[in-house]
């Protein structure tokens, strides 16, 4: 199979003199050559943009006479426009990249470059005229666009403080903000709104820190105050770190290219600004959908008023009628969608970047994708679809804050307050004859009940040993919540991902999970936990009791594993999953499953939202159904370019993942396909 990926390399020979080469050799060979010759090499992968079916990649140019770098913010659309204006002999000279210089022309004259540049709508341009493959940096031609900003912005007032400790962080944050403000103005104008929100947040934190200073010196409560002040410092540190990533990853590779170096050595020439833009667009798309109804507002305004009967008995739990995820007229409305407008007025957007250390992860201020996804996003373990799970963590934070959170106005140093504990006690004691209770209280109780049950899971009692129930004090409930709430959080996240992003498609979700989980360490270390997370998620809404729901979910699991194996995705973990769901081991899996099913199905009852779901354009039919061509409508054909239509990053990424899982990728060059996906999403 021919490789489609090429590498553009510059080698510094003198202050202003560079050798420029294009090759199809491996990046390891390029690095080896650089070590052998003791020279400074920068390189990046570049991808031939215009392919012809059945013909393989265009040949590597034998001679380089010029390199034109176009910093198009929507390269997929720009290439779609340009393609129709190219002569036949020009098509093999067009490339796309993962950098801010998103389109490259090889061997075009400056006159022709400027013509095409104008047709493409104009964007910053850098043109390298070469002589015998050598570049004199003083001869580079630049074209910048005039700034569209009329006057100075009056809504960006950087935070300030007299506190010497805070000043360190405020200065770092301010410095990053000004770098990003300038860069986003050219390469990512929409993202300036994110900077506005970060400025507001940083200022709020500085102000709050100031208000705490009076309390720190008190003999009573001084330590609690200092902990809060420390938490603010920690938040400022994390914001500063996230912004630093945004600067180093998102702005390197900007014009002039040769004067900066990307922090990713395998993208040292052009950087990864285009891929970061794709991550950011993906994230903003989901964030924007969830603005339609704020979980915090629904919980505080509606669920604190409305009463419902919510079961407390986990073994007797029965889901009720089967839940249908349909948008047909007359379909039932959801608890979450009732009660008038709950639009979220503002938000602190997540700063998206890549991380080798953290992989796919979310924190309060940032979301990261594994750095491997820069090279091999088409492999299941590094698919962008994993990012949706991480983004849902942010949503679940708001739910936990609304149910259990503290506020600056109230002094309460227990995770679970006395009144919450009393409500839990009353609810548990009344479980045989449940009464209507406020939904906010019920949801809190369900989570506490789950935490207590998970604790019991780990300590089964021999049948011949008579032992009464566990006496739970407030301290004990605090401890169990603290110990097991992370699992509860994961289960809520699974629900949100499954419902909103995967449109409740059980087989797709199951295959997606296990295709990626077999490539990371944790599911091998804690297989039963991951097994029951996956089973409970696809069982939610089944309308079955726990026993039947487990059987239903197990069937989906086994079917999904067989389908993965059918396309060559195999793992020793699959045998372990089959063992854990058969014979004697199955009773342990069933025991683990029941509290999770109870929790996720209750969450489904109160957090399913057709209002939000309608804002997310997904694959909402089963692509695995026999004869389905559904996916083909929603992936970008690599032989054509979009003509102005808007693609949902979710639908696009899901369709791409489906193609991976069904062995239908057009060719075996993960780097090329990865860059293509980022180019489409970033546009």
């Amino acid at each position, binding site marked *: 199979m021919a490789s489609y990926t090429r590498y553009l390399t510059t080698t510094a020979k003198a202050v202003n003199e560079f050798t420029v080469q294009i090759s199809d050799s491996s990046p390891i060979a390029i690095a080896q050559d650089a070590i052998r010759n003791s020279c400074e090499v920068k390189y990046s992968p570049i991808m031939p943009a215009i392919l012809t079916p059945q013909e393989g990649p265009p040949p590597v140019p034998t001679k380089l006479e010029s390199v034109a770098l176009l910093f198009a913010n929507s390269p997929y659309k720009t290439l779609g426009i340009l393609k129709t204006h190219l002569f036949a002999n020009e098509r093999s000279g067009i490339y796309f990249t993962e950098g801010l210089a998103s389109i490259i022309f090889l061997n075009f004259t400056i006159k022709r470059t400027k013509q095409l540049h104008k047709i493409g709508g104009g964007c910053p341009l850098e043109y390298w005229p070469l002589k015998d493959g050598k570049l004199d940096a003083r001869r580079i031609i630049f074209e910048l666009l005039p700034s569209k900003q009329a006057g100075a912005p009056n809504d960006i007032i950087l935070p300030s403080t007299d506190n010497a400790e805070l000043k360190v962080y405020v200065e770092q944050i301010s410095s990053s903000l000004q770098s990003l403000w300038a860069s986003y103005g050219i390469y990512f104008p929409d993202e300036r709104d994110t900077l506005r929100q970060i400025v507001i947040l940083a200022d709020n934190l500085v102000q709050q820190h100031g208000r705490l200073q009076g309390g720190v010196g008190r003999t009573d409560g001084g330590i609690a105050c200092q902990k809060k002040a420390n938490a603010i410092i920690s938040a400022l*540190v994390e914001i500063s770190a996230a912004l630093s990533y945004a600067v180093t990853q998102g702005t390197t590779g900007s014009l002039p290219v040769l004067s900066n170096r990307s922090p990713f050595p395998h993208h040292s020439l052009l950087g990864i600004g285009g891929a970061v833009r794709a991550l950011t667009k993906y994230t903003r798309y989901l964030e924007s959908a969830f603005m339609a109804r704020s979980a915090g507002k629904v919980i505080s305004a509606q669920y604190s008023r409305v009463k419902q009967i919510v079961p407390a008995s986990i073994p007797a739990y029965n889901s009720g009628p089967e839940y249908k995820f349909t948008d047909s007229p007359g379909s039932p409305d959801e608890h979450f969608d009732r009660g008038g407008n709950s639009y979220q007025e503002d938000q602190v957007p997540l700063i998206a970047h890549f991380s080798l250390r*953290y992989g796919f992860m979310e924190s309060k201020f940032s979301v990261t994708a594994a750095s491997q996804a820069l090279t091999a996003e088409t492999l299941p373990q590094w698919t962008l679809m994993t990012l949706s799970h991480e983004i849902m963590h942010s949503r679940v*934070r708001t739910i936990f*804050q609304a149910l259990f959170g503290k*506020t600056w106005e109230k002094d309460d140093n227990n995770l679970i307050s006395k009144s919450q504990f009393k409500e839990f006690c009353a609810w548990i004691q009344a479980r045989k004859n449940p009464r209507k209770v406020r939904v906010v209280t019920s949801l809190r109780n369900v989570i506490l009940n789950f935490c207590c049950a998970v604790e019991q899971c780990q300590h089964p*009692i021999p049948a011949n040993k008579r032992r009464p*129930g566990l006496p739970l*004090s407030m301290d004990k409930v605090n401890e169990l919540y603290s110990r097991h709430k992370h699992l509860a*959080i994961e289960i809520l996240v699974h629900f949100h991902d499954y419902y909103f992003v995967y449109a409740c498609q059980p087989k797709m979700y199951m295959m997606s999970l296990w295709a990626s989980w077999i490539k990371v360490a944790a599911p091998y270390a804690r297989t039963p936990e991951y097994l029951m997370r996956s089973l409970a998620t696809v069982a939610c809404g089944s309308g079955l009791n726990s026993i039947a729901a487990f059987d239903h979910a197990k069937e989906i699991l086994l079917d999904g594993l067989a389908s993965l194996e059918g396309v060559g995705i195999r793992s020793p973990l699959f045998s372990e999953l089959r063992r854990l769901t058969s014979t004697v081991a199955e009773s342990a899996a*069933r025991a683990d499953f029941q509290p999770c099913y109870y929790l996720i199905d209750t969450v489904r009852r109160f957090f399913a939202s057709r209002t939000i779901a309608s804002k997310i354009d997904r694959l909402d039919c089963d692509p695995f159904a026999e004869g389905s061509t559904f996916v083909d409508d929603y992936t970008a054909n690599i032989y054509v370019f979009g003509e102005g239509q808007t693609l949902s990053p979710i639908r696009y990424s899901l369709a791409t993942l489906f193609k991976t899982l069904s062995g239908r990728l057009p060719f075996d060059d993960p780097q090329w396909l990865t860059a293509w996906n980022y180019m489409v999403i970033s546009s």
Partner: protein
Amino acid sequence: MISQKEMLNIICTEAIEYGGLQELPGQQHGGKTSFHSAKRESRGPEEINGSRPESDSSTVQYDLRLIRKTNGILQWKD
């Protein structure tokens, strides 16, 4: 997804839960050394917010138990 006001209050909650420690890197937020963040250590004990009771308080009888029958089968009893 998190509003400005929610974010401030989340930081306040974390001050009480984690004593002001940073969330990242994962090891600093009460997690353990692993390939994944603390939040994924969902079955691990929470070491920051200690489990030692500080006071005698009222209790509720929690009757849900997981029974291991003589044939090894596990069953919930309430």
